[in-house]
């Protein structure tokens, strides 16, 4: 119901919206909660477990009850949801409707549904848990439903840096921001609300002789004009992290009318030299039977709805509290001309006074009535029980400072008996100062002064002078608070969102779950989306009472980030679809796509899988043709993805001797050598080629997969292990495009573009030269990964695409063409060349038959460990070739090897297959794998079993090199 003459939005235009399909109108600036209250709607939700009718409890992000689905987004708190023209909101967890909810029957089963009910009841038979119990329970107990569609709405993330981050724009935060801004500090002021001002928007006591919101508006206007201040409204600081880093969620478009291209939310990472926490305090309810009926609200929130939005749950309201602040709610209601049925204070002697309305001290609420909304409260005080017919009950159990952020780095808050609240510990988050209500200072004047103090401390730490600022005059009475009270018997809710009652907490204590952390998990208290903002302290009070110990010794549960829920979409903004990982494209990427090549991911790179030609029905046909092309004419393949590292310096040779297991210092200029790098534990890290371009100049290549790792490793060796070497390493992978030309006709083709003598005398196998490539300074390497005569031409990346197009066209005119990764793989398996399928981190140089490449006469990374006896055991799994006995036999990578007559059991395992292919050259399947003592078993027949793919083949163990073991083809 609207209250004439009240609220800051009285002149705002009307905004139509719907709730559960029914048309309503609110005022611009309303939240969904205030708009519905203005329309007389009290019932907005059904509770999680018992499906009890629920209304709005609070006026902020702490709301446990009023969860709705807005435009498909479930579990939106109606108290922070702004309304816009045509917005559609729906209730959730109710069927067929809010008023008639079939699952309301759960409420009648309450005696059976206490804490731990599910654990105790659905224990047997165990198999039914997943199939029956859990699905049924999940359907009955729940929040809103997801749409089931991928979220394609835009989200953003952003970084910000500042001198001072002020968290919260109430009186303390505004004061702190103003002082720091006038001192010249770079200030970010973040506030949860759409309109800054905090409780100044909800109170009537004047500040500087004006309505408090006018003072707030003035400060915000001044801050907005200052170039050193950034205002972040609608932004919740959700977490405090190491080193002055804070997470914050800005609701950019969420909760507002949709605008094209406006992101829904933006997740900020704010790095602040100092921070002021002025997050205010959260009011908590009291416990009494049926304290959850729609119309029962927090007293401070009732004041907010009245003073800010001019709405109340109904014309007759009772106020119930254990503190002086609750009296203010009664005062404001009465001043607005509303009927205050009674002000019930738990404190003092039992008596009744008259202050324009009955004031009952020493009294308690012991029950309520009203099926879908509060109709009456029963009060026990002087003269026994008395019932008041009311539409609303404003309840206050005192205020809990929002200390959450101060606990995110492990700090525990301290219980203050006088304030009945947990207060932040100083220094719990380095660089952060709490002030105002978050620091237990509850009067407006106190908050303003405390904001000034916090700003002063922060400015001092920043080395800035505190400007002269006058603290405006304001109400200075903080009042006192009594202990938490509860009634006896009945259903007294503590955690409204997870339906946890006083009885549940007592049961937990009685059953031995007495630690506050155990109680939380046993009852699920504080584990809902509101994370127990309103229920934490009341629950601790109930637990303390049950255990007969003070709250101070009960302690509190751990507050962890985020303070309010953060959508995964916001945290992972930009990470959907292609944004998930960067894409690295070779210079020939477009040209390969134009030839219809499907791409395959190799790390972050995209490489052509094969190049289909008309009439080819499968990748295998294309692959077989490309292999034959390389074996019989010529093939062209972009190999730019291999890592390329330029190594230069007077000690380059000594340095490479130290990182490679074999010797590179003896390599003549103009030559290439295959090299093996070990890890310090003696296992193989990577392999590649090392070309010597000059006495102090090498270019080394790495595998595509390990390029970054090897670069980091070379930096590590140069900077950490051997800083005595004068050497520099730099990755030039992106700078050079490199193309392999392989096959019997490769020399003719390369000769056509390279201006150098390519005769076998001048450029023999494993030779290299710097040469002009069609006039462009480039390099030629005579290296082969296929077993055929082959060259690799490197040119600066900007020439890569045209070189590739030219070479492919030439190759095609010779009956060859481009080949992709599939053919490359077949070619190297036929030749027994290894990749990271073989050097997968658990194999040594000895295992792959390269122990002679670990030079004996020098030290290198991994040398000492590679000599360990266990790594040289003849019975280790060693690299072998595998070939089926019959040509139709299959070989699959991942298959395991067993003795010919042994059962396929783990105990009998002899090895495994690492690479497999169909070889068009040999017209049979071929495989590489590791077999125990394999080098001594060539010729033996073993059993290959792939249980996953139901493959079983008898294979012959062979040399790993199937094709041309003498290497005549590639040497030429």
């Amino acid at each position, binding site marked *: 119901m609207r209250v004439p003459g009240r609220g800051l939005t009285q002149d705002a235009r009307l905004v139509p919206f719907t709730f559960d399909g029914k048309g309503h109108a609110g005022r611009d600036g309303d939240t969904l909660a205030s708009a519905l209250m203005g329309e007389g709607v009290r019932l907005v939700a059904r509770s999680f477990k018992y499906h009890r009718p629920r209304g709005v409890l609070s006026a902020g992000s702490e709301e446990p009850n009023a969860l709705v689905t807005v435009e498909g987004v479930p579990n939106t708190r109606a108290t922070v949801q702004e309304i816009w023209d045509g917005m559609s909101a729906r209730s959730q967890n109710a069927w067929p409707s809010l008023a008639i909810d079939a699952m309301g029957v759960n409420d009648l089963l309450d005696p059976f549904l206490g804490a731990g009910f599910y654990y105790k009841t659905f224990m047997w038979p165990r198999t039914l848990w997943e199939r029956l119990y859990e699905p049924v329970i999940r359907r009955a107990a729940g929040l809103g439903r997801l749409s089931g569609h991928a979220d394609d709405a835009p989200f953003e993330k952003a970084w910000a840096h500042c001198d001072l981050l002020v968290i919260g724009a109430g009186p303390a935060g505004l004061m702190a921001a103003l002082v720091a801004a006038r001192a010249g500090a770079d200030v970010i002021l973040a506030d949860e609300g759409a309109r800054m001002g905090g409780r100044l928007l909800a109170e009537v006591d004047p500040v500087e002789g004006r309505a408090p919101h006018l003072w707030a508006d003035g400060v915000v206007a001044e801050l907005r004009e200052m170039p050193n201040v950034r205002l972040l409204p609608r932004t919740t600081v959700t977490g405090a*992290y*190491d080193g002055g*880093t804070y997470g914050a969620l800005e609701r950019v478009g969420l909760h507002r009318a949709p605008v094209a291209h406006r992101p829904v939310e933006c997740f900020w990472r704010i790095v602040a030299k100092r921070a002021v926490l002025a997050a205010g305090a959260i009011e908590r309810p009291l416990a009494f039977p049926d304290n959850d009926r729609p119309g029962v609200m927090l007293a401070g929130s009732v004041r907010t709805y009245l003073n800010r939005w001019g709405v109340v749950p109904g014309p007759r309201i009772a106020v119930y509290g254990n503190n002086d602040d609750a009296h203010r709610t009664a005062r404001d209601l009465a001043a607005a001309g509303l009927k205050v049925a009674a002000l019930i204070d738990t404190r003092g002697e039992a008596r009744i006074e008259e202050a324009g309305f009955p004031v009952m001290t020493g009294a308690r609420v012991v029950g309520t009535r009203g099926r879908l909304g509060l109709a009456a409260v029963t009060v026990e005080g002087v003269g026994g029980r008395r019932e008041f017919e009311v539409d609303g009950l404003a309840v206050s159990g005192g205020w809990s400072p929002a200390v959450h952020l101060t606990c995110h780095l492990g700090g525990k808050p301290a219980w203050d008996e006088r304030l009945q609240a947990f207060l932040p510990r100083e220094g719990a988050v380095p660089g952060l100062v709490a002030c105002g209500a978050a620091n237990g200072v509850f009067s407006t004047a106190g908050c303003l002064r405390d904001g000034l103090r916090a700003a002063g401390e922060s400015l001092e730490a920043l080395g800035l002078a505190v400007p002269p600022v006058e603290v405006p005059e304001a109400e200075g009475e903080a009042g006192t608070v009594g202990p938490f009270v509860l009634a006896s018997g009945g259903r007294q809710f503590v955690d409204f969102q997870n339906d946890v009652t006083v009885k549940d907490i007592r049961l937990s204590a009685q059953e031995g779950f007495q630690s506050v952390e155990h109680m939380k998990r046993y009852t699920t208290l504080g584990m809902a989306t509101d994370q127990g903002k309103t229920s934490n302290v009341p629950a601790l009070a109930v637990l303390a009472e049950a255990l007969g110990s003070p709250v101070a010794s009960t302690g509190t549960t751990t507050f962890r980030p985020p303070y309010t829920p953060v959508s995964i979409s916001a945290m992972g903004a930009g990470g959907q679809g292609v944004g998930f990982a960067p894409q690295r494209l070779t210079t020939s990427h477009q040209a390969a796509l134009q030839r219809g090549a499907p791409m395959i991911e190799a790390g972050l790179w995209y490489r052509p899988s094969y190049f289909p030609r008309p009439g080819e029905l499968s990748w295998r046909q294309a692959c077989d043709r490309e292999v034959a092309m390389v074996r019989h004419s010529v093939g062209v393949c972009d190999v730019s993805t291999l890592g390329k590292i330029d190594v230069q310096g007077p000690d380059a040779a000594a340095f490479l001797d130290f990182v490679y297991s074999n010797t590179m210092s003896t390599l003549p200029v103009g030559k290439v050598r295959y090299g093996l790098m070990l890890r310090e534990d003696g296992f193989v890290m990577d392999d590649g080629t090392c070309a010597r371009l000059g006495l102090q100049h090498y270019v080394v290549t790495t595998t595509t997969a390990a390029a970054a790792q090897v670069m980091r490793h070379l*930096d590590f060796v140069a*900077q950490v292990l051997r800083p005595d070497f004068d050497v520099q390493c730099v990755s030039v992978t992106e700078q050079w495009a490199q193309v392999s030309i392989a096959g019997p006709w490769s020399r003719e083709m390369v000769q056509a573009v390279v201006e150098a003598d390519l005769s076998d005398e001048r450029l023999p196998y494993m030779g290299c030269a710097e040469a002009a490539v069609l006039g462009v300074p480039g390099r030629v390497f005579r290296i082969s990964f296929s077993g055929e005569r082959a060259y690799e031409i490197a040119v600066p990346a900007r020439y890569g695409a045209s070189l590739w197009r030219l070479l492919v066209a030439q190759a095609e005119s010779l009956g060859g063409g481009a080949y992709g990764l599939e053919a490359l793989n077949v070619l190297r398996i036929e030749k027994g060349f290894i990749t990271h399928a073989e050097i997968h981190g658990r194999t040594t140089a000895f295992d792959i038959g390269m122990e002679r490449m670990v030079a004996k006469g020098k030290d290198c990374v991994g040398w*000492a460990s590679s000599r360990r006896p266990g790594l040289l055991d003849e019975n280790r799994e060693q690299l072998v070739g595998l070939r089926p006995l019959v040509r139709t036999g299959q070989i699959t990578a991942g298959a395991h090897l067993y003795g010919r007559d042994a059962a396929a059991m783990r105990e009998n395992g002899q090895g495994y297959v690492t690479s497999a292919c169909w070889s068009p050259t040999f017209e049979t399947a071929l495989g590489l794998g590791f077999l125990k003592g394999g080098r001594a078993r060539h010729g033996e027949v073993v059993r290959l079993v792939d249980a996953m793919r139901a493959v079983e083949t008898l294979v012959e163990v062979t040399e790993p090199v199937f094709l041309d073991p003498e290497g005549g083809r590639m040497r030429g």
Partner: protein
Amino acid sequence: MRVACPFCGDRDRREFTVQGDDTSLRRPGRDAGPLAWHDYVHLRDNPAGRLHEIWHHDPCGAWVVVERDTVTHAVHGVTLAREAAR
């Protein structure tokens, strides 16, 4: 967490890769024997408190020694590994 790269200044920890404590500054000689090598390759202390660690600043390639408190996560100093190793 913020780590101050000696070249690039104060940067977010996401830009770094941590390798572990700074044992690698004390690499044994080739023939130091199996026990020394076992210690070097496999054994690490895990103190609650200040620890010297080796980090890599990925964007600039610098290896740095970070003195960090494993309890409070406070960073007490960053030096270039190249200098620490000398």
